[in-house]
């Protein structure tokens, strides 16, 4: 390298570093602003239904966005991601019912359990080719579901964890109070999304994109594909588990449906609905699906039929998520503007 080149290199070093820093600060500020807006929402709309809706959005949104880290960013189509949602709900619920530890301890302990389970299942699954991966993760989901059903003495079988989950106050936060629970859920959602966004925009996030695009090539530039896949599998499981914990707090219990395969199916559909090419696509999909679910349930008992037809419409008819259309429209507009200018 000549001196001249070295000099240019040093210049190039400074500018992007500063950019990265402001970018990160901006992301943190946006996250904070979103949290403040969400937290102040109850002062404007006092509707209990709205707060409940946002809490459910937080639970499913964390779950669906974490699934997008696998499906959209890494190309790992997991059809069993819902097992970690169920694991989070049951782990947390059981911990609170049986041991009576403080909420934060139970929260962390549940994540530790999820970490271990995801590590074992992931180590078995991530080596498999796509369709095998999808179905073997699904099989594990069914295993966890059937274990919950048959281990009646611990889990209450098909009745679920009943009798409510004790939620003793800690640090002045009382999660049995709906407002407190609402603010806590919003905080978990915003923190979770912020962390996942950080992961997606980090060097590791780009490693995942490379694996999705061309895993063979990634291994030929020195990337340990298996390790990277396992890492994101476990991380995604932790966020899904957090979603499950919010759900358990919300319903003050845990039910086998939380661990049933349809949760995974819905997660996949949420991703498709919102679109996997943008980070916020799954969040948009979550809101839409929950609204759709609530509407359909009110109108008909044949909820699956309607949902199925909607899915077909998207999968065969549109073949894209809603956010994909927004992105395309935006790119088109920018192109047109460029041509004119």
């Amino acid at each position, binding site marked *: 390298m000549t001196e001249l*080149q070295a000099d*240019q*290199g040093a210049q*190039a*070093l*400074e500018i*992007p*570093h500063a950019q*990265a820093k402001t*970018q*990160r600060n901006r992301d943190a500020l946006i996250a904070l602003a979103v949290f403040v807006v969400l937290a102040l929402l109850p002062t404007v709309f006092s509707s209990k239904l709205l707060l409940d809706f946002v809490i459910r959005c937080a639970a499913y949104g964390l779950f669906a966005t974490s699934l997008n880290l696998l499906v959209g960013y890494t190309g790992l189509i997991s059809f069993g991601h819902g097992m970690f949602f169920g694991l989070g709900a049951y782990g947390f619920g059981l911990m609170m019912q049986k041991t009576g530890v403080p909420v934060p301890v139970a929260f962390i302990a549940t994540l530790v359990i999820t970490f271990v389970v995801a590590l074992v299942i992931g180590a078995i699954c991530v080596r498999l080719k796509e369709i095998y991966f999808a179905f073997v993760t699904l099989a594990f989901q069914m295993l966890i579901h059937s274990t919950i059903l048959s281990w009646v003495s611990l889990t209450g079988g098909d009745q679920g964890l009943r009798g409510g989950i004790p939620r003793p106050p800690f640090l002045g936060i009382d999660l049995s109070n709906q407002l407190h629970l609402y603010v806590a859920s919003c905080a978990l959602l915003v923190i979770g999304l912020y962390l996942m966004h*950080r*992961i997606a*925009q*980090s*060097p*590791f*996030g*780009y*490693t995942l*994109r*490379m694996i*999705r*695009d*061309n895993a*063979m*090539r*990634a*291994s*030929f*530039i*020195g*990337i*340990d*594909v298996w*390790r*990277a896949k396992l*890492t994101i599998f476990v991380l995604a499981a932790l966020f899904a588990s957090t979603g499950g914990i919010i759900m358990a707090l919300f319903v003050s219990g845990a039910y086998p449906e939380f661990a049933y395969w349809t949760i995974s199916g819905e997660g996949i559909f949420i991703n498709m609905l919102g679109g996997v090419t943008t980070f916020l696509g799954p969040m948009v999909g979550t809101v839409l699906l929950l609204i759709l679910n609530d509407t359909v349930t009110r109108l008909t008992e044949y909820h699956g039929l309607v949902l199925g037809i909607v899915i077909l419409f998207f999968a065969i008819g549109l073949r894209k998520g809603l956010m994909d259309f927004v992105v395309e429209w935006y790119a088109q507009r920018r192109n047109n503007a460029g041509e004119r200018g």
Partner: protein
Amino acid sequence: MLEIRSLSKSFGGVKATDNVTLDFADGSLTAVIGPNGAGKSTFFNLITGALKPDSGQILLNGIDLAGRSPPEIVRHGIGRAFQVASIFPSLTVQETMLAAVCADQRRASVMHRRFPLAETRDRAEHAMELLGLAGKRNRTAATLSHGDQKLLDIALALVLDPKVLLLDEPTAGMGTEERWRMIDKVRELWETQKITVVFIEHDMDIVFKIAPEIIVLCYGRILATGRPDAIRRNEAVIEAYLGTEHHTGAIA
């Protein structure tokens, strides 16, 4: 110094690489030729870890790499580009380069910092300049022309600062003019980067014109090695190529 010691690999009963022993001196430029099915790509796959050899050694500066995984071998300094450009379709040229440098710096699993890392930029920049891709840095790889995709594939190998660069048919699927441009590029890279380059090539005109060293493979064995003049006059080589289509003309 890359030394191959009695390397063998067979598929079923077929010996795709049969007891191959070769030396590649540091800074050499070598062409590997041979009829279709001669085992050229298998040879590359064995060196880069895509296939595990049945026996033999692959010594890079004295370290045996035989049977190790592709990421390990890459980290020891053997880079490779593919016959069909192997790239990351949805990443831009610049992202591809930056991500590759990250991987080379063992930062592929860094999560607490934002991509791209500042300290990776100049290397990526340098590689894009070398391959003439700097002007297309914001194009996604999928939208590049065939030739640019091949260049990107090579850039992807080169940006890792390899000691040995293996190019599997860098001119595959190109028109005559584009071929010469590509091969000039390869030669230029070899001259400026002072690395060992081994490439597979079908076009005999190109091979005889630019490669100081030639290896002829046939049915997994080494038929001949040497300078272009010697290869051109080699009886066994002429025999192997006789009757095999247009190559005959080039040889004679």
